[in-house]
């Protein structure tokens, strides 16, 4: 996994609640067997009309935001389907941080598997950042080690994050590799369970 440490980038404001993962990446892009190249499907129905032409009013289609590295969104971002294609598509587009008042659990979890930082801030902070991000002539800074978001006007917002998730994200650690170091514990657990619930042993 690619680590996330610090980003200085433009932030695109997307002031809608309940943006679900079907909207982040619609189903027709889920038929792939790869995890690369998914930016073409990101917010597809927002970005393109039925003829496949760009909709100029959508924020990520505006010249000022085409290179946005941060997305600021409304409540409950990433609800719905568990598709990890959602964080893959955001990252492939160049967005490595999403700021919202709240995230749906599965999406939030998927972000940490991929080096996409989900930042939870209070509503006033999100509104302030959203307002400052309008117009597109700005830089916002997100620092994971310091757990801060610095607004274009210099105001600093601190955010909370689980320490073990932070550690893995900063160092780009492989969760499977970490867990496999505990293989002896898994062996012990399995042996004990085989006695408790023998009917589940099918092998």
């Amino acid at each position, binding site marked *: 996994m690619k680590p996330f440490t610090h980003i200085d980038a433009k932030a695109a404001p997307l*002031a*809608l*609640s*309940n943006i*679900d993962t*079907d*909207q982040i990446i*619609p*189903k*027709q892009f*889920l*038929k*792939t*067997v*790869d*995890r690369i190249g998914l930016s073409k499907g990101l917010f597809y*129905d927002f970005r393109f009309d*039925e003829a496949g032409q760009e909709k100029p009013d959508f924020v990520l289609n505006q010249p000022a935001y085409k290179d946005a590295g941060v997305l600021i969104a*409304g*409540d*409950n971002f990433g*609800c*719905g*389907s*568990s*598709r*990890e294609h959602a*964080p893959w598509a955001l990252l492939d587009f160049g967005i490595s941080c999403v700021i919202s008042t*709240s*995230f*749906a*659990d*599965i999406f939030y*979890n*998927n972000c940490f*598997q991929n080096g996409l930082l989900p930042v939870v801030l209070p509503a006033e902070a999100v509104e302030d950042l959203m307002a400052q991000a309008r117009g597109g002539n700005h830089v916002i800074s997100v620092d994971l080690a310091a757990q801060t978001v610095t607004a274009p006007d210099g105001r600093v917002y601190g955010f909370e994050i*689980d*320490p*073990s*998730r932070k550690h893995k994200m900063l160092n780009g650690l492989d*969760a*499977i590799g*970490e*867990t*496999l170091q*505990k*293989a002896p*514990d*898994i062996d012990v*657990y*399995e042996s004990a*369970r085989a006695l*408790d*619930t*023998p*009917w*589940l*042993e*099918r*092998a």
Partner: protein
Amino acid sequence: MAAKTLYDKIWDAHLVAEGDGETILYIDLHLIHEVTTPQAFAGLRAAGRPVRRPDRTLAVADHNVPTEGQALGAGAVADEEARLQLLTLERNVAENGIEYFPMGDLRNGIVHVVGPEQGRTQPGMTIVCGDSHTSTHGAFGALAQGIGTSEVEHVLATQTLRQAKSKNMRVTIDGTPAPGVGAKDYALAVIGAIGTAGGTGHVIEYAGEAIRALSMEGRMTLCNLTIEAGARAGLVAPDETTFDYIRGRPAAPKGAAWDMAVAHWKSFFTDEDAVFDREIVLDAAQIAPLVTWGTSPEDVMPIDGRVPDPASFATADKRASAERALDYMGLTAGQPITEAKIDRVFIGSCTNSRIEDLRSAAAVVQKAFLEGRLVAPHVNAMVVPGSGLVKAQAEDEGLDAIFKAAGFDWREPGCSMCLGMNPDRLAPGERCASTSNRNFEGRQGRGGRTHLLSPAMAAAAAIAGHLTDVRDFI
């Protein structure tokens, strides 16, 4: 010893190791399908890691399968990418010795129908699948949750999941429902009450006499929709209804093992003094047949009500979302929802495609048929059974004949029009009465308009040609 909830007990029984913040939790059953696994198997292959417990893994093909011509096999699937995905799954399960019910196999179907139907889903288990509606299996008192593809790879490699514990929420539904009201209405009522983020960070246990009275199919519908309330898992404590359902199924324990298993399963209940972080209480008698009007499952209203006015919502965000939803749905504030004329009816999905769902829809259709009424001429209505076995049972019971005589299309099993990943989907602007789980913009096809409701309500809508109150049909 401190009193524990059902969730606490399942959690504690699966602890492998505890770290700072995250716990390593053992996974008893891993269900997989074609869409969310190719990248996981590719990851294992790249790292040279084997599947730790193929025997605790079960594969089906459901999301992108067509609902006709399945006997021809994956090679006959017209969509090239979908075909490659199905063939990739076939290769991955063969290489790793994982049991697989391919398309066309009588046992194949929607993953959340197949697991319980095979007796693989059992109380007290931990179950995961790369699909958010894995919450369905909580109906058996199993901790069942949807995971992403990286976690699918983690479970394949280690048979464990790293997770922080959620909070406990209990939803109690007491009382007796009115005729025409059931599990789907309970679920929509809960989502309407707490919102689609109301359960975030929680596991929801359902309790109360109305829940006890539900069949396993009803409990599965309720737990299935728990994710639409934001909670990753729903739970119903196992009881005799649960044990009766499991008994005799292919993977159910047999003989002496059955008694041992039931004794084990009976240990999974919430202690009387256990404390929940949040409690919600509803009265089944106060719940009307419900339908969604907007593009979020929390946009719920009684079928005899009027479409809400966006101005009536508390925050600017909500008002903007409601306005956008009404515009997308082609509805006007204040209009009776029964005025909404429909083009399509979809009875199916992991929410409502089990035998009892089909029976309740067929009962409405049969009664109308005997009164000389068929599916309205302008409506295209389809029934998609959840598995080959559900389809066979429905045919044994003559349900297919009722549906077909009334003008419904009787299809082969799969996720079908719930998510529009396969040929079944809505055209732009089409309005659908759907027994599925998500009314998101574009979910059932770009520009498609979805109204979520129960199977009986969907059947009534098919006959009436517009959204209608099922109580007038029973």
